Each structure stands twice: as C-alpha cells, then as structure tokens.
C-alpha cells in the first residue's frame, strides 16, 4: 500500500488548477480522485438537431409530489436533532426567467454528518427522526422552499483528513432534458471550503461563490428556523423556453 495522499498534496493540485475559466467543473479534476477513471478522454460530439428529443422536458411531476414532501422535519413522529433551517430561492434560466412547475429534489446528511445509507459508515449517529430527503415543485415565480435541519460536515477517503463542508444536494429538472442539473448548496463562512476538492473543482472564484447560500436574517422565522436564500440558474439551450412553461 502506498502512503495516503496528504492534504498538502491535494492543496498543491488545487492551487495548480485555480483560476481556470468555466461555469461548470472540468470532469478531469484530479484532486477529486474518483474523477480519474470516470472522465471521457474523447471530446463530446455536438448535436445541432433542432428536433432533438433532449430539447423537450422530461415529464416527472405534478402528480408525483405532495405538499408535505418539502418539510424534512415532518417525516417521522419526533423532531429531528440539529439546527432547524428554511432554505428558499428561485430557479431561473440564463435569461433570468422563472422556471415554473419543475421538480426540485434534495438529499443530505443529518446534523451529525451521517447519511441514511447502508454504505455510509462514518461513525456518527443516525437520527431516527430524519431521513434527509425532500421534494417540491417550483411555483409560478420559480420559487422553492424546504424546511430541514443543517447537515453536519463529514469525513471521506479522498485523501488523509479529507472532510466535506456541510452541504445539501440539489437535483433540478428544467424545461428540457438538457437543463438537468445536479449540484450542491453550501453554507456561508464554512472553514472547510479551501480544503475540499469537490467544491474547489469549480475553479473560477465567482462561479464557486454561486454554490454558497446567503444567510438572510429576515428569512429566519421567530422561535422556529434560521433562513437561507439560494437562487439557482439553470444552463441549457435558449430554444427551449415556453411561454406556458409547465
């Protein structure tokens, strides 16, 4: 067995890639070791067919989501442990138009940094009152809202002493298959940001900041929750917008 990589080795690799341009991370971002054998070497092949099926929207939806699905604190009989938060924001396209009636899904670790998953063996307690899964549809203005608890940071095996900053995973449908986005929302001021190769894979500083929610005191609810605001802008071709968006 070779020596495990140290944080200093990863830091050097992160520094070497810092400042590269691009809104999305490169798939060959070596500091995140799992990318090594999982990125294609051949260039992507451009599709220029205006009839391409991918320019239409996947139908998953309206009748599949109930009004209770967006409160992750109400899925069990008891209250989950941790800091109760509400996360709000708008889903927009690149022209700033609301993406309406589309599915937003979230999943996250509990307050101790443990996922409800067989393969998460991080020695932190599971919370019997928290599953960490939520769904909602955006409203007519593109708004979404989740009530949940703040997830904890957790260790992983990318390198020695690798710890993920606290984050909530987001899955977003758009009005076309090509607007599909899976991303992660981070919490402001987390001291783990510079050490995390997954977050740092977004090498452009301004782009990376778009992954971080704002704490907004006015959105905190008295004697209930701390409020965060995170707006999401979906990529994808401009040809797909519909006046009557689903």
């Amino acid at each position: 067995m070779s020596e495990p990589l140290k944080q200093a080795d990863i830091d050097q690799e992160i520094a070497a890639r810092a400042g590269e341009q691009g809104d999305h991370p490169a798939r060959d971002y070596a500091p995140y070791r799992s990318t090594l054998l999982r990125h294609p070497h051949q260039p992507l092949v451009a599709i220029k067919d205006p009839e391409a099926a991918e320019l239409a929207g996947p139908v998953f939806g309206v009748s599949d989501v109930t009004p209770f699905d967006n409160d992750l604190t109400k899925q069990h009989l008891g209250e989950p442990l941790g800091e109760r938060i509400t996360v709000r924001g708008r889903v927009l396209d690149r022209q700033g138009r609301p993406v309406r009636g589309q599915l937003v899904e979230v999943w996250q670790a509990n307050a101790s940094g443990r996922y409800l998953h067989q393969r998460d063996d991080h020695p932190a307690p599971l919370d019997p009152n928290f599953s960490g899964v939520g769904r909602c549809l955006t409203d007519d203005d593109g708004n979404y809202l989740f009530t949940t608890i703040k997830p904890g940071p957790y260790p992983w095996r990318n390198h020695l002493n690798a710890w993920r900053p606290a984050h909530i995973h987001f899955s977003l449908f758009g009005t076309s298959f090509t607007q599909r986005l899976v991303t992660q929302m981070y919490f402001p001021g987390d001291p783990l940001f510079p050490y995390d190769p997954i977050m740092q894979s977004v090498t452009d500083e301004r782009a990376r900041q778009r992954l971080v929610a704002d704490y907004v005191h006015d959105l905190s609810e008295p004697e209930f929750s701390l409020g965060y605001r995170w707006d999401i802008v979906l990529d994808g071709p401009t040809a797909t917008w519909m006046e009557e968006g689903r």
Partner: protein
Amino acid sequence: MNPTPSQTVGPFYGYALPFPGGGDLASGGIAVHGYVYDGAGDPVPDALLEFWQPDEHGSLTGSPGTMRRDPTNGAVLGRDGVRFTGFGRVATDLDGHWALRTVVPGNGYISVCVFARGLLHHLYTRIYLGQDAFLDSLPPERRQTLVAVEERDGVHRFDIHLQGEKETVFLDFG
C-alpha cells in the same frame, strides 16, 4: 445570468433519487439493459442513469406523473405501470448493471443522462435501436458505441464506458 455550477451526485443519493419502478416506462414492450464501466474496465456501482424518450408514435407528451404513494406515510410505492411518462431513472446495482422496460421510441433513440460519484458534471448519450443519419456522421468505430445490440427478441444490450478504448460517445447540446 451565469449558471449554477454542477457538482457530483455523490455515492449516497441511493435512498433519495431512484424510486421503485423507476425503470418501468412501459410494460409489454422491450427491455434495454447494460453495464456502466470505468476506465479500468471495472463496473461502476454508484451511477445513476436517467432516460427520456417519446412513445412509439414519436410523441414527447407523456402523462404528468404516474407515481403511487402510501396514503399513511407518503412513501413512494412505485409507478402505476400503465401510463407512459417517457422519463425513467435507474441506479446501477453493485455489478454496475441497470435495466429498463419501455417501448420502441418513435424517433429511434432513447436519451440518456449519466450521473455518478466522480462525475462532476453529468454526461449525455443516446441508445439507438436502429440506423440514423447522426450515427452515419460518426467514425464507424465510435458509431457502434451508440447502438444497442439485440441479445434476443425484444431484449437490447447497451453498455456505457466512461473512459478507455470502448469509450461511449458523449453528446454536447451547446
């Protein structure tokens, strides 16, 4: 406006994104199945595949949801198995295998979106069930990576290679 950057789906989406019957777009049609492999030729056990396709007649307007819920606790019970939505979602199993039950798409291909731990930005590809002008535009050795092999009547095999000699053609929609 600038887009929100993509991030990996991670290894622990498993209880959140896949749902019972996620690969059952329609019954009584065809089966499409295969494996996802990494650059070392090893199966990828933590990939998530999404599918999108028209019905037999080419229509992309499916039913707006067919999911049944447990009225007591809200748990997802799976699809009703009758109405066609055109959307499928399947996680690979520990062998890197996935399977889909569907109908032959009227446009000749099933669109695929690939997510996995280690993939910072998802990848698109297509499963072709027959000949097509787009396939003809590709070099012959690469063209084959987009064409399903009919293993037996109504059962089609389509493997996805993320990297390496057999690397699948991945698509860019601009």
